[in-house]
C-alpha cells in the first residue's frame, strides 16, 4: 500500500537542492546584456520550467501527475529543439480533444436529473480538475482525487521554497 503521508521535509530539501542547481545553471547562461526585457522574459520561462521540472523530478515516477509533467516538459523541449511543424500537429490534436470534451459537458448540462443535479455539477467540476492536474485526463475519479491531494501538497511546498528564495535575494 502506498504510504499516504508525504515526507514533507525531505521533499522540500530535494526540491530546494534541484531548483537551486537549476537556478545557478540558468544564471551562468547570462549574456552580457542581461537586463533587456526579452532576456528577462526568456529567463522567466526557464525558471518556471525549472521549478516544475525540479518538483516533478523530486517526486519522480512515483505519481501519475509527475510522470505526466516530466513527459510534457521533455516533449516540449524536444519540440523546441526541432522544427515547429511538429508542434502544429500536436496542438491540433489537443484542441480537437478539448472540443470533444466540451461537447460532452454541454450535453450533460442540458439534461439535469431530478436527484442528480449536484452529481452533474460534480462531474463537470471533476472534468475541470482533470484539465488542471497533469495527466488528469486519463485518470478515473478515485485516482484523480488522490493525485490532486498529492499535487496540491507539492505545489504548496514549491511556492513556500520559491518565496524564501525570493526573500533572500531581495535582501
Amino acid at each position, binding site marked *: 500500500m502506498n504510504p499516504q503521508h508525504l515526507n514533507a521535509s525531505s521533499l522540500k530539501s530535494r526540491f530546494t537542492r534541484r531548483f537551486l542547481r537549476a537556478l545557478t545553471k540558468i544564471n551562468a547562461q547570462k549574456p552580457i546584456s542581461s537586463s533587456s526585457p526579452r532576456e528577462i522574459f526568456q529567463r522567466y520561462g526557464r525558471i518556471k520550467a525549472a521549478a516544475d521540472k525540479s518538483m516533478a523530478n523530486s517526486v519522480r515516477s512515483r505519481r501519475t501527475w509527475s510522470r505526466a509533467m516530466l513527459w510534457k516538459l521533455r516533449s516540449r523541449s524536444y519540440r523546441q529543439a526541432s522544427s515547429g511543424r511538429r508542434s502544429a500537429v500536436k496542438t491540433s490534436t489537443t484542441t480537437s480533444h478539448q472540443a470533444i470534451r466540451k461537447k460532452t459537458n454541454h450535453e450533460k448540462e442540458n439534461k439535469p436529473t431530478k436527484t442528480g443535479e449536484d452529481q452533474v455539477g460534480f462531474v463537470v467540476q471533476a472534468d475541470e*480538475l482533470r484539465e488542471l492536474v497533469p495527466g488528469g485526463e486519463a485518470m478515473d475519479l478515485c485516482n484523480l482525487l488522490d493525485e490532486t491531494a498529492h499535487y496540491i501538497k507539492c505545489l504548496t511546498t514549491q511556492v513556500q521554497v520559491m518565496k524564501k528564495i525570493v526573500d533572500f535575494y531581495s535582501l
Partner: protein
Amino acid sequence: MSSRRSRSRQSDVSRITDHQITDLISKLQQLIPELRGRRSDEVSASKVLQETCNYIRSLHREVDDLSDRLSQLLASTDTDSAQAAIIRSLLM
C-alpha cells in the same frame, strides 16, 4: 442516446464505493485553506472540487509571479555557488 451515456457515466461513479469517494473528498477539503475549518457534511462535494480548482489556479499564478520576480532579481544580482550554499543551509 445522450441520456444513456450520462446515466452510464453516473453508474460508473457509483460503482466505486461512495465511502471511498467521500473519504478522498474530505481529505482534499483539509488541504484547501478556505474550507479547512468547516465540517465535511456542511460542504457539498462539488463545492470542494470547485474550490480545489480555484486553489490550484491560484497556486499556479503564484508560481508564475514568483518565477517572474526571480527572473528580475537574477538580472540585478550577481549570484554564485557560494550564495546557493548559504540558501541551502538556511532552508534545511
